[in-house]
């Protein structure tokens, strides 16, 4: 998100899911879309069938490659070099949209200079993608009338994550692909409400609606809405909290609905930190690995047991409606926040109707009350309401009650005025293979599982479809280690080791392996690197160096 904010002034998917069907070129990079976003993947396959050119750039020969017009297998962690090189070819061959750049972009010269040396030959050495293929991709992309870029964690979960996003934005800007249907720069959100959580300022630097915490006007505005004083001190990012605990600065932590002990890179580090807290409160629907460490465990509700909204990857705010009551004494998360708030801060709910529902036991203020408050603090959602959601599907910005929402962003002007073409120098990943750890590990998802598996592993159809962890390895590497398919192996990095089965496949290149991160019995994140992107502090979960050994 930091990347998109830098370039454009706003961080979200610029276009729509079904706009994919209108595109004539799709560049899918660092996204195993058919597995991670199956319905978006389906739209891509349909578009490809209809004649749209599908370009896939992924370290693995993912399923999309089977339907792709062009596909590139770059080395993990070298996306930035690849993208810069694409930009280089486009400028070198004069394929850029000059009119668009003149009208809508700035800093072009510095940008142009920064990619001067990023020739396809230079990139081939780094990425292992043939220079001629890079040229062909650059031409195909630039010649597309409507060329959309789609990416996920494969781009962002790197020490150079922010830079990668800036590079992709550069590519979209110089080809004039922002602000029209079927094109755009489209981060595919991995979780149901990443967009909503970001929108709502669950972020140490932003108030709801991306209003900066260090901005005096924003501070005043929220001080007024919330009727309180606002601290000027910057907050801690999730990835900085571990160290803050170890240093004794952070003593109480409330985790709502996350399982960082399993999901964070170098997860044993997170566990050690949590154990040192004075008070760890975990609110979840299962006793997760993180909850097991907690001092207070609060039983929460699943999506089917509560009211509210999720904002999807295309910025559409959509209703979540309670269908069944939570089990036992579990309560919906909002009621829990309200109860804690009442207990700690006194009753804040004057004015809200406090009838207790005997089936759902919801405690006011209710989701609809909160939503109304949200519409008063962010203009982009000011025109939305639960009433409108009954009949309409609205993407923000939607500033007025009769505004139809904005499916495609940046038609006409960017939030920051002109797009900023950043000069990006590509830096390699934090950790590279060496003699001791000769393989590059990249991690990802499989269709049948989701995240740390707390939900999917308890749904029998899904669990039986993908019941155990595995490491994908190229036949050449497997042969070198005398491994046979499905044999158990040990994977070791500088941070930890796990045991799992080997799956021999040419979907991964020689020198590289892939492990899905869903399985706690062989948690890939015990191996991954928690080195952070310096700008947005995202950890480099997608690439690290490991070794694989035969189990004896």
């Amino acid at each position, binding site marked *: 998100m930091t990347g998109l904010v830098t370039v454009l002034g706003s961080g979200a998917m610029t276009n729509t899911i079904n706009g994919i069907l209108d595109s004539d070129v799709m560049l899918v990079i660092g996204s195993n879309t058919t597995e991670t976003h199956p319905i978006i993947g389906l739209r891509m396959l349909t578009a490809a069938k209809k004649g749209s050119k599908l370009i896939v750039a992924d370290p693995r020969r993912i399923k999309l490659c089977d339907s792709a017009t062009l596909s590139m297998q770059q080395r993990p962690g070298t996306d930035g070099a690849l993208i810069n090189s694409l930009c280089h070819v486009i400028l070198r061959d004069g394929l850029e949209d000059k009119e668009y750049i003149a009208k809508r972009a700035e800093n072009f010269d510095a940008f142009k200079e920064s990619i001067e040396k990023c020739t396809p030959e230079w990139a081939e050495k780094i990425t292992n993608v043939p220079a001629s293929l890079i040229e062909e991709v650059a031409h195909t992309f630039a010649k597309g009338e409507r060329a959309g870029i789609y990416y996920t964690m494969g781009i962002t979960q790197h020490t150079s994550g922010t830079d990668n996003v800036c590079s992709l934005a550069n590519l979209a800007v110089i080809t004039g692909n922002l602000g029209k249907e079927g094109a755009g720069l489209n981060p595919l959100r991995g979780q*149901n409400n990443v967009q909503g959580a970001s929108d709502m300022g669950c972020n140490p630097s932003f108030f709801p609606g991306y209003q900066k915490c260090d901005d005096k006007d924003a501070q005043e505005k929220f001080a007024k809405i919330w009727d309180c004083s606002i601290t000027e001190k910057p907050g801690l990012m999730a990835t900085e909290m571990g160290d803050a605990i170890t240093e004794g600065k952070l003593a109480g932590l409330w985790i709502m609905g996350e399982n960082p002990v399993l999901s964070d890179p170098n997860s044993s580090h997170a566990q050690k930190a949590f154990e040192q807290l004075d*008070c760890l409160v975990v609110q*979840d629907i299962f006793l997760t690995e993180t909850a097991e460490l907690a001092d207070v465990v609060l039983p929460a509700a699943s*999506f089917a047991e509560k009211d509210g909204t999720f904002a999807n990857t295309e910025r559409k705010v959509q209703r979540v409606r309670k269908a*069944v009551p939570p089990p036992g004494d579990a309560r919906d998360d909002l009621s829990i*926040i309200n109860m*804690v708030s009442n207990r700690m801060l006194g009753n804040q709910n004057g004015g809200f109707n406090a009838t207790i529902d005997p089936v759902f036991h919801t405690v006011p203020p209710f989701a609809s009350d909160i939503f109304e408050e949200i519409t008063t603090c962010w203009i982009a959602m000011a025109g939305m309401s639960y009433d409108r959601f009954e009949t309409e599907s609205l993407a923000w910005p939607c500033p007025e009650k009769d505004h139809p929402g904005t499916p495609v962003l940046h038609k006409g002007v960017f939030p920051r005025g002109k797009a900023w073409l950043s000069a990006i120098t590509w830096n390699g990943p934090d950790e590279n293979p060496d003699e001791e750890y000769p393989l590059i590990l990249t991690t990802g998802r499989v269709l049948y599982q989701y995240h740390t598996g*707390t939900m999917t592993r308890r749904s029998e159809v*899904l669990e039986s479809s993908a019941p155990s962890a595995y490491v994908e390895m190229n036949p050449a590497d497997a042969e070198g280690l005398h491994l046979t398919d499905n044999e158990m192996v040990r994977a070791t990095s500088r941070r930890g080791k796990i045991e799992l089965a080997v799956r021999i496949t040419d979907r991964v290149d020689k020198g590289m392996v892939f492990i899905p991160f869903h399985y706690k019995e062989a948690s890939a994140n015990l191996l991954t690197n928690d080195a952070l992107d310096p700008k947005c502090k995202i950890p480099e979960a997608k690439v690290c160096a490991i070794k694989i050994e035969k189990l004896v």
Partner: protein
Amino acid sequence: MSTVTLNINGNEVIAEKGLTILEVAQRADINIPTLCYIKGKPTDKPCTICVVEVEGKEELMRSCVTLARDGMSIQTDSEAVIAHRQERLAVISETHFGDCKAPCNLTCPGQINVQGYIAHVAKGEYEEALRVVMERNPMPFSVGRVCPRFCETRCRRILIDEPVSINHLKRFVADWCMTHEIDLKIPKNKPTGKRIAVIGGGPAGLTAAWYLTRKGHEVTIFEAAPKLGGALRYGFPDYKIPKEIVDYEVNTILRMGINIRLSQRWGKDFTLQDLKDMGFDATFIGIGATIDVPFDVPCTDKENVYTASNFLRMINEGRRLELGRKAAVIGGNNIAMEVSRALLREGVEQVTIVYPRARLEMPANQRNVKEAEKEGVQFLLMASPSGLCAVPDETTRLKLDLIRMKLGEPDKRGKRDILPISGSTNSLGVDTVISSLGQMAVDGVMSGGELEEQLKMKPGGMFFANPRSSETSVEGVFAGGDAAIGSKSVIQAVVSARRAANNINAYVMGCEKDPADTRFNFTRGKSFDDVSLKNFDEIGINLREKMPERPPEVSTQDYDEVKLGFTEKMAKREADRCLKCGCTAYERCDLKRLDIDFKVNINKTGMGREPVYPIDNSHRAITIDPNKCIYCGRCERSCEYDALEVRADSFDEKGRPVGLIIDFKEHCVSCGKCVENCSTGALNKKNRIVPIQSEEVREIHTTCPYCGTGCQMVLKVKGHTLMEITADPEIGPNFGDLCVKGRFGHNFIQHPDRLKTPMIRRQKGLPLEPVKWDEALDFMAQSFSRILGEKGPDALAGLSSARCTTEENYAFQKFFRAGIGTNNVDHCARY
């Protein structure tokens, strides 16, 4: 846009040019049925159900492929069209093979979704199971102990080994929920403002009160006894239904919010007119049948001669009676069995049941007869008491004169009357005689007031109630349970009262009553003889779990329960024995719906008789039963991935497939869209094992909780149970598509591992301990406040989740920023 104007069923319809007649009709909300239509994907093997009559055309036209033209005049339901559809449906139905509903379900007087609750038990979802039972029977605790189990007599498992122990499973889930103090969270409708009086607080009264309260009415129960429960409390002895079970059952029902007035005897303390005057909109009579039919032989006015109901009432009230060593019980009904077994527990050494016919002719359930015998009750059969006038010898207090009986010639109906054998008199010396010759609601006519006197009675002392409306001869007064149908089983009283409640609701609301279940049913065989054994080729013998019980020599020493109940493991094993006869596509089956709509009588036109194909369970998410396939091809054409092929070796003379193959390709992604498009139950989701029948199913539109696509889905909910997830083809961004996680990834919601109670760790090193919310909140607030006081606001932080709602995330950061005063708030996936 150019348009066409045409006439459908006499109405002018203007439509976009280029659409088919079917599409035009759909947009105009005119229903044209079809079994094979998939938008934009025509088939070369059409069902031809969608035909319509087009003026000027001799032949019927398929509306799915005929373009609507200007000036067309169309009949969608002319006689010829209907005749064609009926014929086609009959042809298709002829080879459709399977059970719509399971035989257990059809046999249950309560029409309980038996297969459904067994399926829940098999999955460990006991709470859900109990809710399924309680949809149709609010008294599972008692019925689970005393049900005559009509269902088990028709269980198809009998054809393999033994029937599933259905009733024991019902009792298990009820008991499990009781021990785990489960709040079933039964919903009720908004208040209607209507008030209903219920006379009698036994099974019928409680049942009526429960259903009427759920409908939103204000119900008051008037009970003559000092406690509620009726026959459950004063009829059944403790070894059958312990009093704490009765208490729990009654309280479960009362928790719905029901008013009670105890020790109020109808006809003495109040009258029907009084109830009217109090403003009740309707009255339900559910007083049971508690008056014993008199023992009509000479000299029964002696001491130590009791009638059954009175006797059981005294025993259940804890009265000590001097009963002596020997007792005779006159009669062969269920109550006689309980009287006999109670006598044994009262210390009577020899209990003899006297009955004038053969044992198999006893009205009592044979299971009850066997249980009495096992405990040592003796049977004197083909004997009838003739009087108690004789003087006993010193060893006993009474002398019961008896005469032997024989069977007479069969009458026209083949029934043989009993005749005394002349000169065969004999006598039995006993200390106590208890007669159990049947019960009535009222002896003679009801008295107390004018309205009471207007109540028509049936012969045998029951209230007349119109079988269709449950109404008595007095307007606004209804009757049900034993008081109307005579002394029967608890479940039958429950059913009668539930029907009455449905009628009362319709009466006070002036609305239609909830429709009765359809009688339409495809079946693999009505009687056991009709069922092909090929159905069970793959199923091995697996005998039923044995109910743990106390041996008779121990159990007759006290009133503790004899049958101890299944353990959880036994219950799961027993539930796994269920053959799952009923179709889990019951509520979505288009073939059944159209057969009913077009009044196709499949009992005459025919249905499949035996399985042709084995059921295929090899797919990870989908069960394939080709025997139900009607070759509509919707599955194949709805697949977005071309991962499914349906083909046949050949076709019979009526165009039906022979050698059918439903072939899922290796690249199938298990999204399940084909199942949703299947027009019968040929394709079924493996995790949708509970059939949905006539119960109300709510459809709730919501957003998928997995990736960020935000697919819109429809949650199908029955009671509080999420049955399945589907998608609406009209709603984006997914327009009917979902992935495997969307359609199949929701079982976690009902998973037993769910956190159900707050927990705290009082001290580092100690284990987490379940506590009430109050304590957990106090503990957390104190810890956080202490940190806040000692180290300041920045020593606290919050990590929220991209899984939670926008509103929750907003409230969470507001708590930290506005409440605590720190910006230390983040979420784990903000990238």
